[in-house]
């Protein structure tokens, strides 16, 4: 199992239908529009449109969602440049230089660089995915239940560690997800568990309504509440004007673009990081290496090149741990992982042996999505920003309607609508209380794998956990988990103490 040109040809064969190409193009267009809408992230976009893929074949379905992901990452830069508000969190670094350029009347140049850097970043990361994913997957094939258990715990702890400020809230979110995952049938004995006497709970919660609830409906409620607060605030949109990119711009930007793409791919491959972190790291590196560091923050074309190439570079990278190990690279891939599961595919190394064609198709879908992004971005460069002008009172009822029908359509079951509503409200309350959402989904997805492998390992040894620790890879993964958790807790406590001291000094 390694990279070969036969894989690429097989991938093209998977994609080579008009329906599939159309779905990727449509997904990319939707993604750019969603990304350009402030407040709607690629994650929300994928969650909202996931129900449309139930009745599709796996490759067009995944191509459509991958298109939304890639388009969404680029689309975030449009509003970042023109209205000083990143459409997605990954576009936050682009604001630093993109908006000052728009203020100087160079919005067209900034948008062009954002588009080209995003495309190059996306393509480089896609190639990296094609090369490295099979290698990692073939190594992971040697893993047994102990390593899978350790990986499950590692994935959960890493995601929990990224919760803003308070790791305990992140861990709590993981526990909520794991607990929800426990409801239904026991994975080993098949006995009903934690159903509280409710017949509808026997099958456990379906992934789709939970996903739509916590990522789309809760976000909708949040936006709704924000709108009330910002009723009187009006956003200033700068016109798409100015000259095109010059050769000098390219000469200055090519190095940040390449570096940004590689940083994005690498950071994306680290579980639970994603495009936002990559963009800021790449931006910092570009400023350090630049001959004109003073221009950064005041409208530097290199700044846009670095941040945009990195956030789109992360798209391919985030797929590596998700496809090979079953641990998502960021929140979007967590949702995409749900899409894979719905299609009957289990993320992990066996995906490369049992469904190699689908994996090859996914590579090519990612590649084509980036090319469509370039074409559509180029055509719509001057008018994509107009989606920001769509009134919220039109857009949000549509999203609300899509949440309702989307959660119902999967099983034609109203219980799923109720699930979506409850999780949406719960999600909103938890977001407000500072509890992150991604670990809940991760807990729900990884819970089954983690529990099954833990019990399979413990049953033959009569509950002796030492058998896990005796396996070197498992021990190493568990040690890294404990180290990263301890490090995050110490850092959190230190930051809190420092914050306290600053407050006291003030």
């Amino acid at each position, binding site marked *: 199992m390694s990279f070969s040109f036969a894989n690429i040809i097989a991938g093209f064969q998977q994609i080579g239908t008009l329906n599939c190409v159309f779905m990727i193009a449509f997904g990319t267009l939707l993604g750019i529009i969603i990304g350009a809408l402030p407040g709607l992230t690629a994650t929300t976009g994928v969650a909202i449109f996931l129900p449309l893929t139930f009745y599709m074949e796996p490759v067009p379905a995944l191509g459509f969602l991958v298109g939304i992901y890639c388009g969404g990452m680029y689309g975030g830069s449009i509003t970042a440049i023109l209205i000083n508000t990143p459409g997605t969190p990954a576009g936050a670094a682009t604001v630093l230089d993109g908006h000052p350029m728009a203020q100087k009347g160079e919005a067209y140049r900034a948008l062009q660089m954002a588009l080209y850097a995003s495309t190059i970043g996306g393509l480089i990361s896609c190639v990296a995915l094609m090369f490295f994913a099979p290698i990692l997957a073939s190594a992971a094939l040697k893993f047994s239940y102990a390593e899978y258990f350790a990986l499950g715990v590692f994935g959960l702890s890493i995601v929990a560690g990224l919760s803003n400020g308070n790791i305990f809230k992140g861990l709590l979110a993981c526990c909520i997800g794991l*607990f929800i995952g426990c409801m239904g049938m026991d994975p*080993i004995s098949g006995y*009903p568990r934690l159903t509280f006497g409710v017949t509808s709970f026997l099958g456990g919660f379906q992934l789709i309504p939970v996903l739509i609830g916590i990522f789309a409906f809760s976000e909708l409620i949040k936006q*709704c509440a924000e709108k009330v607060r910002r009723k009187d605030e009006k956003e200033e949109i700068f016109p798409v004007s100015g000259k095109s990119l010059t050769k000098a711009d390219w000469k200055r930007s090519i190095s940040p673009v390449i570096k940004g793409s590689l940083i994005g791919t690498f950071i994306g491959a680290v579980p639970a990081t994603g495009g936002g972190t990559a963009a800021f790291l790449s931006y910092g590196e570009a400023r350090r290496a630049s001959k004109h560091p003073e221009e950064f923050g005041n409208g530097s074309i290199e700044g846009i090149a670095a941040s945009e190439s990195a956030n789109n570079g992360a798209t391919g990278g985030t797929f590596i741990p998700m496809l090979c190990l079953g641990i998502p690279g960021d929140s979007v891939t967590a949702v995409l992982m749900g899409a894979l599961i719905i299609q009957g595919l289990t993320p992990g190394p066996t995906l490369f042996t049992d469904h190699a064609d689908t994996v090859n198709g996914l590579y090519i879908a990612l590649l084509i999505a980036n090319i469509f992004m370039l074409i559509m971005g180029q055509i719509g460069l001057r008018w994509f920003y107009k989606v920001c002008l769509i009134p919220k009172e039109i857009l949000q009822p549509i999203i609300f309607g899509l949440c309702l029908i989307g959660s119902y359509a999967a099983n034609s079951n109203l219980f799923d609508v109720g699930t979506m509503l409850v999780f949406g409200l719960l999600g909103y309350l938890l977001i407000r209380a500072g509890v992150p959402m991604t670990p809940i989904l991760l807990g729900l997805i990884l819970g089954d794998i983690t529990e099954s492998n833990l019990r399979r390992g413990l049953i033959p040894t009569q509950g002796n956990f030492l058998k896990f620790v005796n396996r070197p890879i498992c021990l190493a993964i568990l040690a890294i988990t404990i180290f990263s958790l301890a490090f995050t807790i110490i850092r959190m406590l230190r930051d809190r103490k420092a914050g306290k001291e600053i407050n006291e000094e003030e």
Partner: protein
Amino acid sequence: MNNLFQKRIVIKKSYSDLGLGILVALLTLYMLFIGNYKFIKVGFGAVGKVDDRLFPTIIMVVALVCACAIIVLAIGDIKRDKKLVAAGKQPATVEFSIMALFLFAVGLFFYLTMKKIGYPLCNFICVYAAYYMHGGRKIWKGVLLAGIFTLVCYLFFAVYLGVNLPLGFSL
């Protein structure tokens, strides 16, 4: 009505954390000592402690530890907030919008009535209600939005994808 939608509950972040911690701690204690035995039956193939209750128990223990940590940190924050207030500064707050409950109620209406009055009418009402709650006041615009959206959704999901969307009124 507008004022009602704009209502929000503002509480100090430290109190919100404390409430969250206490709530989770109580729930986990209940599950650990009562719920796990009441709602989980041990199936065949259990070996010693390795049974259906093992994993939920681990989750509850971790959740309890987290809840206790959140409570401890929240108590520290409450003390810090008092110092901030004494120094004339504003401590961090958390806002909960009442709008969330209204939107939930509209969804609940969909959940309760969709089978009886049918998807088209039910969806129309819900989308219009959401339009109104988001500040839309032009009736024709809301009717047009809800009508077109319902029609498109019905055609796509029921006609194209074959999803069973009831028409209601025993049709």
